[in-house]
């Protein structure tokens, strides 16, 4: 079957290029912006999702994993006594100042546990052993810290809150939404650094007995720790993400960016399709004169819009993919899941078809008698 839509697109090359470029721009904007946001959000929960804890016990109203408050560390003893709890340990997460060789002072986020290996924290260690952390004034520093702290290596020393720590290895992938680099140290070393941490903890990590109902175990912990909040891993990750999305306005900001991207796409596609429809109005009249219906004309416009959507999406997706290594060099992760890409594709098709509605209105009920006008 002859496709008048396809042939018209090929015939009006410049206009088609503008249409497709508009779609590709909108797709790139949405994929990269939302991808960056998703990458940032991934950082907000990466330690929650990598740790093997099924349940997190927090102080009341802790908004996200980075902004921890403390509570008595003895709470863990009661948690260990709850049916269905296989293991429970205290975890300190605290912002601390680190002295750099340059003399500058920066902030870092300290994760402190007695037994890191049991909780899969950190999960990617290079040139060191987490079990050695408890043997002295040792830390593991995440590789991403180089951007803020400058280059470092195992064997180097850094001062945290005035105490000298030896870097015994590096980790990778451990990051926080706040961009403060993460350092791992022994639980008791962390408590020695600050009076505020004496006999106190930030979280209790809980592992449920295999096969236990995690929700039921969490409910049982809530009953014995009424002054704490208790979340399953998914609940805690969702709460941490929600804080950054809702409370900071970042979600709104992202929504506005996506809206503007879609708006640009709609305006460009609608404008070019509409101009095309106006210029081809006599052809559409001819289609009707030779027996075509309004739907035959709508189909032509819809096919043009769909082609612009598919080609524009492919170009936009390719451009976004090509930008990933560039972003990675800036320690920015563009995270685009297949589900999100599929949603953007569906949105692109919907956007282009929506934009075509303006053209539909222009050609709706077109008078085929215009074919006799010169």
């Amino acid at each position, binding site marked *: 079957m002859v496709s*008048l839509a396809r042939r018209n697109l090929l*015939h009006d090359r410049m206009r088609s290029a503008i249409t497709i470029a508009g779609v590709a721009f909108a797709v790139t904007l949405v994929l990269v912006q939302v991808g960056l946001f998703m990458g940032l959000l991934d950082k907000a929960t990466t330690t929650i999702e990598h740790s093997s804890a099924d349940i997190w016990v927090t102080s009341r109203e802790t908004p996200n994993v980075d902004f921890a408050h403390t509570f008595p560390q003895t709470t863990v003893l009661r948690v260990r006594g709850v049916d269905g709890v296989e293991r429970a340990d205290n975890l300190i997460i605290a912002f601390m100042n680190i002295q750099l060789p340059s003399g500058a002072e920066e902030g870092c986020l300290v994760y402190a546990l007695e037994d890191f290996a049991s909780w899969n924290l950190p999960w990617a260690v290079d040139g060191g052993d987490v079990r050695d952390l408890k043997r002295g004034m040792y830390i593991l520093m995440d590789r991403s810290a180089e951007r803020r702290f400058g280059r470092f290596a195992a064997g180097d020393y850094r001062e945290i809150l005035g105490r000298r720590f030896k870097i015994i290895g590096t980790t990778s992938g451990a990051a926080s939404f706040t961009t403060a680099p993460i350092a791992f140290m022994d639980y008791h070393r962390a408590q020695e650094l600050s009076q505020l941490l004496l006999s106190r903890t930030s979280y209790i990590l809980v592992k449920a007995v295999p096969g236990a109902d995690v929700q039921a175990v969490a409910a049982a912990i809530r009953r014995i720790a009424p002054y704490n909040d208790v979340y399953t891993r998914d609940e805690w990750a969702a709460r941490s993400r929600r804080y950054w999305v809702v409370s900071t306005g970042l979600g709104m900001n992202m929504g506005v960016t996506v809206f503007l991207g879609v708006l640009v796409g709609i305006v460009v596609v609608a404008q070019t399709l509409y101009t095309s429809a106006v210029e081809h109005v006599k052809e559409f009249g001819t289609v009707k004169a030779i027996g075509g219906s309004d739907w035959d004309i709508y189909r032509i416009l819809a096919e043009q819009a769909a082609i612009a959507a598919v080609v524009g999406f492919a170009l936009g997706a390719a451009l976004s993919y090509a930008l990933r290594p560039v972003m990675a060099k800036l320690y920015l992760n563009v995270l685009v899941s297949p589900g999100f890409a599929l949603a953007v594709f569906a949105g692109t098709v919907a956007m282009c078809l929506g934009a075509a509605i303006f053209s539909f209105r222009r050609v709706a009920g077109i008078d085929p008698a215009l074919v006799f006008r010169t």
Partner: protein
Amino acid sequence: MGGQRMSGRVLEVEGVVKVFEEGAQRVEVLRGISLDVEPGQVVALEGPSGSGKTTLLSIMGCILTPTAGTVTVAGEVADPERPTRLRDIRRRSIGFVFQQFNLFPALTALENVEYALNVKGVRGAAARAQSRAVLERVGLGDRKDFLPRDLSGGQKQRVAIARALAGSPRVLLADEPTANLDTAVGEQVLDLFRELAREESKGLVIVTHDPKVRRIADRVVGIRDGRLAA
């Protein structure tokens, strides 16, 4: 109103009146026109500008509906209340040839014809084969892959005629088909029209200012102020 009517005529126009109303203004363009066209007959419809001949052609082509009167095409009465049926009549029984050719500029000669067949419901290899045959018929077999911009005026009009012939309609309606052609090419196109009407028993109505059309016409009908002149 709708229904089949058996008759030897391919086109019958009976008492057609057309009134255009715009606000309080009322213009009676056609005032009771009756006209029959037999198979194989060429009718030339002549008249000055504004006499109503293009309006009559539009009504005969089921593009416009008459205010009063009836039009019967290939035995089928055109019911003005049923636009879908009018479209079906156009699709099945009428081929149009326009003064400006009205070819699709992005399609080749072959595709222009094939697209018309697609609209009429003929698809795939059958449409392609019929399109080739029709283009051969109008002497453009060797230009089938040319875009309209690469064809001369006469060749464009031949493609337009081939497109009108696609689907073998019983009636051909041509609006000033020689107006944009030079004399020699215009003569060739008229010869082709006559040949098609005779050999394929098509009823052909040509709206024209061109006196050369009289040469091929079996009947010349004048129209003045919305009425047929003798």
